[in-house]
C-alpha cells in the first residue's frame, strides 16, 4: 500500500518536474522569438494598424504591404541571388582542392596553411574599406556584382576550407588505400572516393556560405550603389525619411529574412558544425 503511494508520488514528482521544465523552456523560447513574431505579424497589418498605442494584436490581415514591398524588390533580389550563389560556387571550387591539400595528401606545412586562412578572418575588413573603394574604382569594379562575388568568396573561403577539411578527414583511410592500390590517381581518388562521401558535408558548407553572403551589409553599403545593391540595402531604402513605414518595413524584412531562416531551420544539425568551422561534429 505505502509502496504504491510512494511510487505514485515519485511518478507524480517526475511528471510535475517535466511539466515545470516544459513551461520554463517554452517561456524562454517565446521571449526569444517575440521580435521575429512581431516582425511577421506587423507585416500583415495595414499601415494604419501598425502604428497604434496600445499595439494591435487583432486586426484584419492584408497582403497589401507585401505586394508593395515586392514591387521595388526585383533588382535587389536578383543581385543578392547572383552574389550569393556565385560566391558560394566559387568558394566550393577553391576550397575543395585546398582542403584536400591540407588533409588527405597534406603539404608539409599544412598547419601553417590552415592558420593562414583562419587569420584572414581575424583581420577586420573594415580597416581596409577606404582603399578597397579606391582599388575597386581603379579596376572598374565599383558597384558591380562581380566585385561582391569576389569579396564574398574571400570572406567565406577560410570557413569553407576548415569545414570541408574536417569532412575529408572522416573519409576512411582504407577506402583511399584501396583506390590507390587500384591505381587511382589524385583526380579519380577525388571524384570517385572523396566527393561522393563528403557531398552531404559540401551541402552544409554551401548553406553556411549562403547564410553569410545573403546577410552581408557592410561591403554592400560601401561598395555598391544601384547596379549591385543587395537585399539588406533594399531594407534600408524601405525606411523613408517621413511618414508611416512600420508595416512596409516589416513586410520587406520578412521577405528578406525568410529564405535564410528556412535554410537554417532545415540545416540545424550542420549549422553547429559550420559555425564552429568543423570543430564540433
Amino acid at each position, binding site marked *: 500500500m505505502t509502496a504504491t503511494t510512494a511510487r505514485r508520488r515519485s511518478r507524480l514528482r517526475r511528471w510535475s518536474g517535466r511539466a515545470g521544465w516544459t513551461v520554463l523552456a517554452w517561456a524562454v523560447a517565446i521571449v*526569444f522569438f517575440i521580435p521575429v513574431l*512581431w*516582425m511577421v505579424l506587423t507585416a500583415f497589418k495595414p499601415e494604419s494598424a501598425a502604428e497604434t498605442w496600445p499595439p494591435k494584436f487583432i486586426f484584419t490581415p492584408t497582403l497589401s504591404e507585401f505586394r508593395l514591398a515586392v514591387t521595388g524588390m526585383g533588382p535587389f533580389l536578383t543581385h543578392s541571388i547572383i552574389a550569393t550563389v556565385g560566391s558560394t560556387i566559387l568558394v566550393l571550387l577553391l576550397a575543395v*582542392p585546398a582542403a584536400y591539400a591540407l588533409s588527405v595528401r597534406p603539404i608539409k606545412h599544412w598547419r601553417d596553411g590552415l592558420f593562414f586562412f583562419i*587569420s584572414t578572418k581575424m*583581420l577586420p*575588413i*573594415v580597416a581596409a574599406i577606404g*582603399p578597397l573603394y579606391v582599388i575597386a574604382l581603379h579596376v572598374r569594379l565599383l558597384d558591380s556584382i562581380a566585385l561582391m562575388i569576389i569579396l564574398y568568396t574571400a570572406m567565406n573561403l577560410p570557413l569553407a576550407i576548415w569545414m570541408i577539411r574536417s569532412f575529408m578527414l572522416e573519409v576512411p583511410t582504407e577506402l583511399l588505400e584501396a583506390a590507390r592500390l587500384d591505381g587511382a590517381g589524385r583526380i579519380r581518388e577525388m571524384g570517385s572516393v572523396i566527393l561522393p562521401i563528403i557531398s552531404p558535408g559540401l551541402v552544409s558548407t554551401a548553406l553556411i556560405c549562403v547564410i553569410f553572403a545573403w546577410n552581408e551589409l557592410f561591403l554592400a553599403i560601401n561598395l555598391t550603389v544601384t547596379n549591385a545593391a543587395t537585399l539588406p540595402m533594399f531594407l534600408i531604402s524601405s525606411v523613408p525619411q517621413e511618414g508611416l513605414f512600420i508595416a512596409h518595413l516589416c513586410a520587406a524584412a520578412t521577405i528578406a529574412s525568410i529564405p535564410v531562416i528556412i535554410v537554417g531551420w532545415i540545416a540545424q544539425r550542420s549549422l553547429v558544425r559550420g559555425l564552429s568551422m568543423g570543430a*564540433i561534429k
Partner: protein
Amino acid sequence: MTVIEDLAPPPKVAVERRAASRREGWMRRLPLLPALIYTIVVTQIPFVVTLWYSFQSYFWDQPGGARFTGLSNYRAVFTNPTFRGSVVRSVIMTATAVIVAMILGVALAVLLDRKFFGRGVVRTLIITPFLVMPAAAALVWATPMLDPNFGLLNYLLAPFGVNHVAWLSTHALGSVIVVMIWQWTPFMTLIVLAGLQSQPTETLEAAKVDGAGAFATFRELTLPHLRPYIELGILLGSIYLVNVFDAVRLMTNGGPGTSTTNLPFFLYQEVNNAFDVGGAAAAGVVTVFLTIIVATFALRMFARVFQFEEASR
C-alpha cells in the same frame, strides 16, 4: 556523438619516398595554390594599399589626388578622441555581448539538454534570432520594437512601470548591445549544447550514485568538460561581434553624439562622410595592429581548443 575534433596529423596513407619527394611536394602544393593565391590577392593587397594610403593625404571630394604627408594621419588618429572612444566602445560592446550571450547560452543549453514536451520546436524558435538578416533585425528592433510611442517593448514592460521610454535616445549603447546579445545567444547555445550532448552519461550517473548534488556535478564535471566549447564560442563570437556594423548603423547611426560609435562605424564615417581616405587608412592600420595583438592570443587559444599535437612531418 559530438566531439571537438582532434586536429591530429592527417592519416599518412602513403609512405613518403625520398626520391620522388620534390615532385610529390609540388603535386601536393598544387591543389592549395588557387585558394592561397586568391586569398592573398583579395585579402592582403587591400591592407598593403591601406598602409600606403595611411602616409598620404587623400580626400576624394577634392581634386589633385594623393600626396605624401608622412605621419600626420597617424598624429591625427591618435589625437582624435572619437577614434579612441570608438576603440574603447568596440571593446565594451564586444566583451559585454560575448560574455552575456555565453552565460545565457550555457543556461539555455542546459535547459535544452533536458527532456520536455516540444523540445525540437523550442530549439528551432531559440535559434531563429541568429538566422534573421542582421539588417532586418536591426531595423525591426529600431522602430517596431523600441519606438517610444508604439513600440512593443514598452507595451510589454508597461506592467513593470515602464512608461514610453525612448530606448534609442536614453539607453542607446545598452539597446545595441541587447540586440547583439539577442542575435548571438543562439550561436553560443548551439555550441554549448553540442558540448553537453557529448558528455558521457556514465560519468554523470556515477556521480549521481556517489550522491553528488546536481549543482556540484555541474561545477565539477560538466563545466570542465564544456571548457573547450565555451572557449571556442567566445573566440568565434568575438571575431564576428567586433565587426558589428548593421546594428549600429541602422539603430542609432553611431549616436546620440558618438555614444554608440564603434570602430567599424567610425571607419565607415571617415570614408563616407569625411571623404578622408588617408585618415581612414591610418585608423585602419592602427586597428589592424590592435587586432594582431588580440589575434595572436586568439590563434593560440584556437590551437589549444583544437587540441593540436606536436608538429608532425
